[in-house]
């Protein structure tokens, strides 16, 4: 019991402290760093790196790679220069939203790891809060000399730029596709080279599967607040894009016919029992859906290539599928009907980007930058994709054998990235995203009908971004 009181106090005092730091701190520290150019430090130096990765858990491979390869290699390179640098990994294996809150609290209190694993779409709100500073300010103009910038396409590097200032190094990007279990499809008499071209064809396939085996949940399209950002990016957005509308186009999309159409799709599949509403409400719903897919209890789900390389990977995955390459298929997400998607597309997708940033409070900006740029070097990323191929920010690494020969990555690079949609990097985005998750959850859980939920959504986001920035119909 006292435990819980302590927990509450922790929350309250952390809130208090973070504000104290946000309001009062900052000033003097900034002054110290302005004049001086960061220089390599003599004597032993210890820097830390935070990632939402933990050995034996979430993003296991990233944690292993850092511990087994990146940190020792970097330390040896430093030692060869006669410098004594120790690097420590701060592991986390938690929901991305919780990880973000942790980072915000750390940074606001002037604490946190020196190098931080980051999601590109958080950048804007962290920068306006003053939690992150441009690399040239933290380290110095030397960062512009890094060889890697030439290898990173402008569009990708732009995800880590605010007001022409670089804040970090992009690591990789991804794309959303439909994954499906070929074995379940075969049992239901469906083709193993499935490529639906409309929502109706997805629903048809789901009905066929349901009929063949009532124990299988045919579809998993994320739909609740407990799934967090996954509900937005691999749930609602790919469906909305299939109606021809975007979440943001000069202004935020409100209660429009396309919005109703997209929410209506969720109502159809959840009301008919083609997808499982209970799973969306569970605190551990997302992991549970991965587990169900790995055992064949879920037949079709929308995910990014993350599922393929990190979740069901036979070697390192959280829920490995030993014969993954034989039983799991992937295909592009169709628009409502051919040509109905954004930009008149037949198929749609959504993408995000991972990155690493520097903590402006670091005591060793020079060493932290050297480690950050080493992690983004061709040498390090090439080593990374050997074990777990993924699309990196660097073109030279993407051209390497490991990435180019991987079936799903070449598929995403060639077929999906050209038609994809990137999240708007606005400060308000995360709040809008949360409102959106609530709207979908309300419909899926049967709490409100589609028009009511959409009207509520419009009212909520009008309060966040201002009614003048909402597209109303």
């Amino acid at each position, binding site marked *: 019991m006292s*435990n819980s009181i302590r927990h509450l106090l922790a929350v309250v005092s952390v*809130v*208090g402290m973070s504000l104290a730091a946000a*309001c009062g701190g900052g000033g003097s520290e900034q002054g110290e760093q302005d004049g001086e150019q960061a220089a390599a430090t003599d004597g032993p130096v210890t820097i830390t790196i935070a990632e939402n990765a933990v050995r034996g858990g979430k993003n296991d491979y990233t944690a292993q790679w850092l511990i087994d390869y990146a940190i020792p290699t970097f330390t040896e390179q430093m030692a060869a220069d006669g410098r004594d640098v120790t690097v420590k990994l701060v592991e986390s294996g938690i929901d991305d939203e919780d990880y973000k809150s942790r980072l915000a*609290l750390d940074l606001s*209190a002037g*604490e946190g790891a020196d190098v931080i694993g980051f999601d590109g779409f958080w950048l804007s709100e962290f920068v306006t809060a003053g939690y992150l500073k441009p690399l040239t300010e933290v380290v110095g103009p030397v960062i512009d000399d890094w060889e890697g910038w030439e290898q990173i396409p402008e569009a990708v590097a732009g995800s880590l730029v605010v007001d022409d200032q670089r804040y970090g190094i992009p690591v990789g990007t991804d794309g959303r596709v439909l994954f499906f279990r070929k074995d379940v499809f075969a049992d239901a008499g469906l083709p193993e080279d499935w490529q639906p071209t409309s929502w109706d064809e997805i629903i048809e396939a789901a009905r066929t599967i349901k009929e063949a085996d009532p124990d299988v949940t045919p579809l998993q399209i994320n739909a609740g607040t407990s799934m967090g950002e996954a509900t937005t990016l691999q749930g609602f957005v790919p469906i909305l894009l299939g109606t021809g509308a975007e979440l943001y186009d000069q202004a935020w999309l409100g209660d429009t016919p396309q919005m109703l159409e997209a929410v209506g799709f969720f109502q159809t599949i959840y009301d008919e029992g083609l997808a499982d509403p209970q799973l969306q409400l*569970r*605190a551990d719903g997302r992991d549970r859906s991965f587990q169900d897919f790995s055992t064949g209890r879920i037949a079709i789900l929308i995910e990014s290539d993350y599922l393929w390389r990190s979740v069901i990977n036979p070697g390192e995955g959280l829920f490995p599928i030993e014969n993954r390459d034989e039983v799991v298929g992937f295909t592009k997400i169709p628009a409502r009907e051919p040509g109905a998607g954004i930009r008149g597309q037949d198929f749609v997708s959504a993408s995000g980007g991972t990155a690493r940033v520097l903590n402006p409070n670091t005591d060793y900006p020079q060493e932290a930058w050297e480690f950050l740029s080493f992690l983004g070097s061709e040498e390090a990323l090439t080593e990374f994709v050997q074990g777990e191929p993924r699309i990196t920010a660097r073109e030279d690494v993407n051209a390497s054998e490991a990435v180019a020969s991987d079936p799903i990555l070449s598929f995403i690079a060639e077929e999906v990235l050209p038609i994809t949609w990137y999240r708007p990097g606005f400060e308000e985005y995360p709040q809008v995203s949360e409102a959106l998750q609530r709207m979908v959850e309300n419909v899926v859980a049967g709490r409100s009908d589609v028009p009511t939920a959409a009207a509520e959504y419009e009212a909520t986001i009008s309060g966040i971004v201002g009614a003048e920035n909402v597209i109303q119909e």
Partner: protein
Amino acid sequence: MSAGAGPKAPQTPAGGGAGGGAGAAPASQDASDDAPAAAAGGQETAGAVVLGRGGASAFVAPALGLVGVFLIFPALWTLYLGLTNARLTGLAAAEPQFVGLSNFVRALTDPLFRNSLKVTAIFVVGSAVVGQTGLGFLLAWSLRGWRGPVRSAIEVLVILAWIIPGSVVAFLWIALLDGRSGTLNTLIPGDGGIEWLLRYPMASIIVFNTWRGAAFSMLLFGAALASLPPSHLETARLAGASAWQQLRDVILPSIRGHILTALLLISLWTFNLFTPYLLTRGGPNFQTEVLPIYIYRVAISSGQLGYGAAISAIMLAINLVVALVYLNVLKDKT
């Protein structure tokens, strides 16, 4: 408290603590020097005579300092924060604006806040007043005549539920209540497969918290019952009182103070309890979103620090009112 202070604790608190300690040391030195004289002078006025106003203040100062630093300052800070639009990230994190009472107005009109108040009330009445106090008394009452290993075994089990860390206990309960392979569903014949935490979320956390916290009131009531003079019960029995009449007319009036103390402490603890989050995260559909979870969600997860602080201030006020009511009743009736 230590967990609450967190990693930043060493700065101000350590300074304050060290200063207070240094200040207190000479005072206690004086006191012990003078103690024999006081003893010789006369027992009844010892403290007042020896310490004097200055000595007493020196004794109290460190405590008051700690209360000020850890209790009054954060409370005032929370109040101030509640008057701003501060956020965890974004522009409102760098430059919070003063927004007057609008956070409080918003709270009163927010259906989720009212929902949370209702949920908290049900949770406190169900698991603290009826559950923990009731079960604790029942256990103490049933065990009062027992001696030996059986009694010890039951007491140890009940106390274990109380002292195991919350996160461990939450894990055990999730395993117990899981819909697919949970222990409870396995014990129930048939292929139930009930998702207890989704289907009966409020009942689940009430039973959970009752199980978890009954030990405290069991111990308190056990001690209270043991202190009852056996002659009172003996007299009642000789006068022909039934067990129920003994309970109502002899026992309950005698331990009224204990009951009120237990109720005060347990309902305040439960009111501030965050542990249901570990089982349900406040869901599904906010059905178990008690106030601490609501505050956590708006302040940390959604990053609305100002609004979260306003709700915290309201919660603080409710705590004070509840405590005052109990203390008044306690003063009147004992």
